[in-house]
């Protein structure tokens, strides 16, 4: 029933009381308290969202420069001049880092999770509003530090977003490996602190702040996804933080955690006995769960949208919950599949490969359930649904190359080739971004009180959907033909020459796809001012955010506390007056 799982009546009422006490803060008046150092989870959610929005355009711009350099290496760009091979690697490093941390981790969880988790479970705010504010501002600081790496002597680091030492540990190993690399590590460590605080907040909020009637198994799948993502974050970011500190010590204090005896350009470095593989284990122990941190919120959201817009209950709610839980659990046991070619014992590859194949099973279950939800539905093709269907398509396409890379023998030809780049961009990049787009179109009316333009959204969807396929599907072909990742030119190896045409095609596809994103940007800001006024429940959805005013008041429900009587996906219930039954409707749906 109410409160946390288990516990007697007395304990529950104390909890409710305590929760109420700590959230009785009045709406702030001044600009600074209201919009800058705000304690309101909705404002913090928007802050995270707009941070991610600037980050995604920075990251996209970097990829544009990379694609130009790959095809026209000698061209002098306005303001930039000619891009050198080391600049290309800096662009690549910063593109990956910014996209993974400040977009894919920030927008779905920090942005939409912050805004809608409390409302969807009927709470007035997150459990710890001050901690929430702190999480955002630490993340903001991390972002500022990351961007500053562009402007120091030597520029941004060139060691890739994975930062493998010794390259990332030795200032002499390349341009950008001096101050730029220090700033990179510091930024990531800061980001980890923000993410850890945020994870604690999400977990506590989900467990303790649910209103009466909102049992765990009545939570929308979005809430389940944010909850599981927070648990992954709590367990993963601590490890990355430690690894980052050790790397910082190696770089600046002369320790040798990751660096053995090495000579760079004939000069003996002052290190001895460290293990480069240790970093890889620590990094990927974080790095693989990170993939799920990026995509689980999108999975939860798309489950929600497929149900809402098919006007059908989600197919297999429990199966979806168990699938997400097992993805979360198995996600911590597969990190070694990034290291099949690393020099790690070939015997461990057996175990990691088996676990990786096993994690494909819950992913497949989710796909079947999405298709099962569409089956027999009455699909409304509103903009959020287009992106949800796009997500399913991308998830399948990106997922299908997983079982190739999960086999150590196939990693012999494929590891560190463009095949991998295509794989993770489709599943972790594009699929997650489609989740962010879907969430934006879906919740924009609630957040800003107006509808986004549907015709612009359709153009945006079609161009992005076709464009991203044209960018990332050919990368699989190039990878099979042996094109290594992170090459700034294809001119040195003769066998790469025939692939230049394919890469030219990718670059043109990138131009079009990037241009299409400005339709989205325009639609976003134009609709804030000129969009059609939204009603409180424009999509005729059932969850709690659609029961409150648009935009929601400071305490979310205007002094009322909702009580939940139904599951989150009661659409087209036979005998019901409308084709949807709100979670708060007292005409309960028979248990099933």
């Amino acid at each position: 029933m109410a409160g946390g799982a288990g516990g007697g009546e007395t304990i529950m009422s104390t909890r409710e009381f305590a929760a109420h006490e700590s959230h009785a803060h009045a709406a702030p008046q001044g600009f600074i308290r209201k919009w800058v150092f705000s304690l309101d989870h909705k404002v913090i959610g928007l802050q995270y969202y707009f941070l991610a929005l600037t980050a995604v355009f920075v990251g996209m711009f970097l990829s544009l420069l990379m694609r130009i350099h790959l095809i026209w290496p000698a061209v002098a760009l306005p303001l930039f001049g000619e891009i050198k091979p080391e600049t290309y690697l800096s662009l690549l490093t910063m593109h990956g880092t910014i996209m993974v941390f400040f977009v894919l981790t920030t927008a779905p969880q920090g942005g939409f999770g912050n805004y809608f988790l409390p409302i969807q479970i009927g709470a007035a705010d997150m459990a710890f509003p001050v901690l929430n504010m702190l999480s955002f501002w630490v993340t903001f600081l991390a972002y500022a530090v990351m961007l500053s790496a562009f402007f120091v002597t030597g520029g941004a680091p060139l060691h890739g977003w994975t930062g493998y030492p010794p390259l990332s540990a030795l200032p002499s190993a390349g341009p950008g490996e001096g101050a730029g690399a220090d700033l990179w590590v510091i930024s990531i460590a800061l980001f980890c602190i923000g993410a850890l605080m945020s994870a604690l907040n999400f977990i506590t909020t989900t467990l303790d702040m649910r209103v009466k009637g909102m049992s765990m198994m009545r939570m929308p799948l979005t809430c389940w996804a944010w909850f599981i993502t927070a648990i992954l974050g709590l367990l993963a970011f601590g490890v990355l933080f430690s690894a980052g500190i050790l790397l910082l010590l190696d770089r600046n204090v002369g320790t040798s955690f990751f660096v053995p005896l090495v000579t760079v350009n004939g000069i003996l470095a002052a290190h001895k006995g460290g293990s480069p593989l240790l970093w890889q284990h620590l990094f990927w122990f974080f790095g693989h769960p990170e993939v799920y941190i990026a995509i689980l919120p999108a999975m939860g959201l798309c489950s929600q949208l497929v149900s809402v817009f098919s006007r059908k209950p989600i197919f297999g709610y429990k199966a979806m919950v168990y699938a997400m839980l097992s993805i979360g659990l198995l996600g911590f046991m597969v990190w070694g599949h990034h290291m099949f070619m690393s020099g790690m014992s070939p015997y461990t590859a057996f175990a990691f490969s088996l676990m990786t194949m096993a994690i494909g099973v819950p992913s497949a279950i989710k796909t079947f359930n999405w298709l099962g939800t569409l089956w027999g539905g009455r699909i409304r093709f509103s903009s959020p649904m287009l992106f949800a269907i796009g997500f399913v398509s991308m998830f399948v396409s990106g997922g299908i190359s997983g079982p190739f890379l999960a086999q150590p023998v196939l990693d012999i030809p494929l590891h560190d080739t463009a095949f991998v780049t295509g794989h993770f961009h489709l599943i972790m990049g594009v699929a997650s971004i489609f989740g962010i787009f879907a969430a934006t179109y879906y919740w924009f009316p609630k957040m800003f009180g107006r509808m986004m333009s549907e015709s612009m959204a359709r153009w945006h969807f079609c161009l992005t959907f076709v464009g991203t396929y044209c960018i990332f599907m050919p990368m699989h072909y190039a990878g099979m033909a042996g094109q290594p990742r992170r090459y700034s030119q294809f001119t040195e190896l003769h066998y790469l020459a025939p692939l230049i045409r394919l890469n030219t095609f990718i670059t043109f596809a990138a131009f079009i796809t990037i241009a299409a994103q400005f339709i989205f940007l325009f639609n976003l800001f134009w609709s804030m001012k000129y969009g059609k006024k939204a009603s409180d429940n424009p999509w005729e959805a059932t969850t709690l955010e659609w029961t409150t005013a648009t935009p929601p008041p400071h305490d979310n429900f205007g002094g009322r506390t909702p009580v939940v009587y139904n599951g989150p996906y009661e659409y087209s219930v036979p005998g019901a007056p409308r084709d949807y039954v709100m979670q708060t409707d007292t005409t309960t749906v028979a248990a099933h």
Partner: protein
Amino acid sequence: MGLVLLIVIWLITIASTYFFVAKTWWLPVGASASAAGIDHQFAITFILMGIVFVAAQLILGLFAWKYRDRGSSSPARYSHGNNMLEIVWTVLTFILFVGLNLMSSSIWASERFRPAEPGAVQVEVTGMQFAWYFRYAGPDGKFGATKPELEDASAGGEAALGLDTSDPAARDDLVTGTMYVPVNREVEIILRAHDVIHSFFVPAMRFKQDAVPGLAIRMHFTPTTTGDYEIACAELCGLGHYKMHGMLKVVSQEEFDKWLAAREAEKQ
């Protein structure tokens, strides 16, 4: 919009699949003993995953069109799912994925679990920013000592590896920039790196292994076709990563012996 989705998804699926099936771009022609097994496993995975890919995308497109809201009064099917179906597709996927894993594991074991055969040709491969060096033990069959403090990358050759010329075993060691090996004989590679991580990637040999500073990694492969094969670096190693390449020349045993003797004579 349902029809648009159907057409777009189907077209993308058909176009993507066409280029795979037509093998417009494919794995380079294999020239080693392990190529057949790896390529076979690749083909099986490709067929199975290809079927799943095409089926899932076609169904997605079809459902989007078929179950579009036609404004009729017939409501959507009210169903919370079907446990039997959940069990069926869980078990089927499990069998498919774990089956693939077990099949490939046996190939992996034969590639990586056994050491090189006793008669294998030994070549020490060293990666450094941004070149590959190859060392042969010479007539004595022993690699001489190397010392990090003697390394001089700019001098190239023996000096780049820091070969200690005072060691008797080092006197007949050969250091080259091109890798020669005889055909149809196993090659044992001892893989090292001086500065950062590199990765020794010979696509035609179906060979890839990271070279890690501080480790000497032993691997083997057997070239089966004579010819010249390009060597790439597959691990980001710094600004010259894209141009860190080398050449593997697979020649007959006689030619290999002749080449080795000539180089040895040059050196003495």
